[in-house]
């Protein structure tokens, strides 16, 4: 619809662009989970949980430390974001443990969605804008590489035809993803 086949719309994107694209995909997946049921809901839910794990890890490893040291009031801004992330993670963990078939899934899912989307809006307003102002484009572009490495370690869109149970087995639960993503980012940042 938007992009032509063969054109990667994230070419030339910096670290903020990639995180914005992830926010957009996260919003979409929340909508998909809410609007679907059965197997397609499970697929959307699996992708959402993987993406959240990759995304929050990337932010904690790359963007928050950068913001802490470089934007006005960085420590307070980042601490507030980390508190929000902790709250969302607890909600997420409970839901991952119980799965989308659990009876009170809808209400807990709504709470998770609110927590995640409000957190994302605060990042975009109080952190991303300031980072763009504080750093030269090349620096932010270079950091994109670490986010790409994180995405590569835990692909969030399984190949078509791969059943979600299999994909889960291959990728492991979110906690394992987080460890692998963190290692990949730290390696990328050292290079």
């Amino acid at each position, binding site marked *: 619809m*938007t992009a*032509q086949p063969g054109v990667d*719309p994230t070419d030339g994107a910096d670290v903020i*662009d990639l995180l914005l*694209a992830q926010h957009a995909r996260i919003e979409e997946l929340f909508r998909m989970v809410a609007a679907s049921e059965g197997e397609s809901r499970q697929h959307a839910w699996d992708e959402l949980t993987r993406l959240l794990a990759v995304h929050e890890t990337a932010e904690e490893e790359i963007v928050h430390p950068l913001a802490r040291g470089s934007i006005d009031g960085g420590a307070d801004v980042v601490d507030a974001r980390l508190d929000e992330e902790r709250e969302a993670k607890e909600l997420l963990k409970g839901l991952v443990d119980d799965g989308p078939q659990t009876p009170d899934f809808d209400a807990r899912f709504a709470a998770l*969605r609110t927590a995640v989307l*409000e957190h994302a*809006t605060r990042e975009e307003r109080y952190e991303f804008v300031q980072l763009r102002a504080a750093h030269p484009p090349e620096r932010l572009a270079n950091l994109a590489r670490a986010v790409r490495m994180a995405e590569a370690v835990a692909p969030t869109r399984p190949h078509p035809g791969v059943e979600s149970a299999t994909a889960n087995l291959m990728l492991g639960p979110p906690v394992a993803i987080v460890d692998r993503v963190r290692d990949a980012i730290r390696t990328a940042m050292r290079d």
Partner: protein
Amino acid sequence: MTFNPLVEKGIPLDRQLRNWRELDVEPLDPDAVDPYTRCRVIVMNGIEIESIMFSHHMARTCPDPEVKRQLAYTRYIEAQQQKVVNWLLPPIASTLETTIAYEQVAVDLTAWIARMEPDPYLKQAYEFGVLEDFDHLYRYANLFEMIERRKARKVVDDLTEVMPGRPTTVHHRHPYDNVRDPYDRNTVDPLSKLHALTVMSAEQQTMNFYMNVGPQYMEPIARQLYVEIGMIEQEHVTHYESLVDPGETWWERLVNHEYNEVYLYHSFMTQEPDPKVKAIWELHLNMELAQLQAACDLMRRFDGREPEEVLAPQLPVPVTFEPNKEYLRHLLGTQIDLTTLGAGYVREAHERFERLQEQIHGDEKPASERVIDMHRERFGGEYRIETEGPHPVESLRRPEDGDR
């Protein structure tokens, strides 16, 4: 159903004041909201703001301290109404998301009013204007994906198509050519007065919004696009406000404002699916009824006329938010190359138009063109929502339309 606003009593004025708790409304959930609910909120915000500003201007020319106090009281209530309405907008939506919703309002509200307008000259004014807001929606949608990585479908759903209209670059006309001829207040259908006031208020709020939020962006292309489209919204306010008969008295205009608010709250109450929002439309309708009675009393006292002489005999068909895709496609196919000359419309680019175009553009492409170029460059194409097939104007189809 017979609902006669001149007979209904509503909530007495002295019981309309609300405390902080009552003003603290729960905002809409942007991911669950009906896009047209958000459109209704944006319209009513623009309507309330016009009422407030109209009342301020009236008060500034009013020598009678008693009337001034009465206007001040009603205006305070209207300021509360504006807060309640506009604070329904979701806090997690970005400015650009709200901008896209504003353009959806401009498209589907103006298109609906154009369809319903009985006077051919006024209808032409709406048909002319809507193709420009339609194009703004497309430009902002491309900006949205570029700088926020979101798709405009998230805001407009598939209710409103997103594709080129009359290109924004040619909306920059000589100001003389933005002044229309007014309707005649004595012979015009009263419905036409409500239409003109509604569209003018909506465009005025869009102008105010862009002129204030535009500088919040860091990205040069975003700042520049808000400058460019902000200038056009001011042209649109000139275009629509000049449709209104300048001979209407202050009292008559006050009555028209209050009646229009009753009309719109009533319209939106009848179609609102969100129960919390519906309750607000209903409450405000009941407040407006008493405000209308007070305005009618002022008109009787100071104009020596009965409000019935200037108002519709009954409430017109409710203003409705609904898709206008076929109508817009028809307009795109027949009116895309129009511009204005004096108070009329022509297809030829005339001298005054071309001179202003040269002055404003110089040798540069404006932001409205560059935003599409940049999007094509970064995303390999442009952002559109074409639910009803390829663009009706062949030259505005995408090269890749063949394989969609």
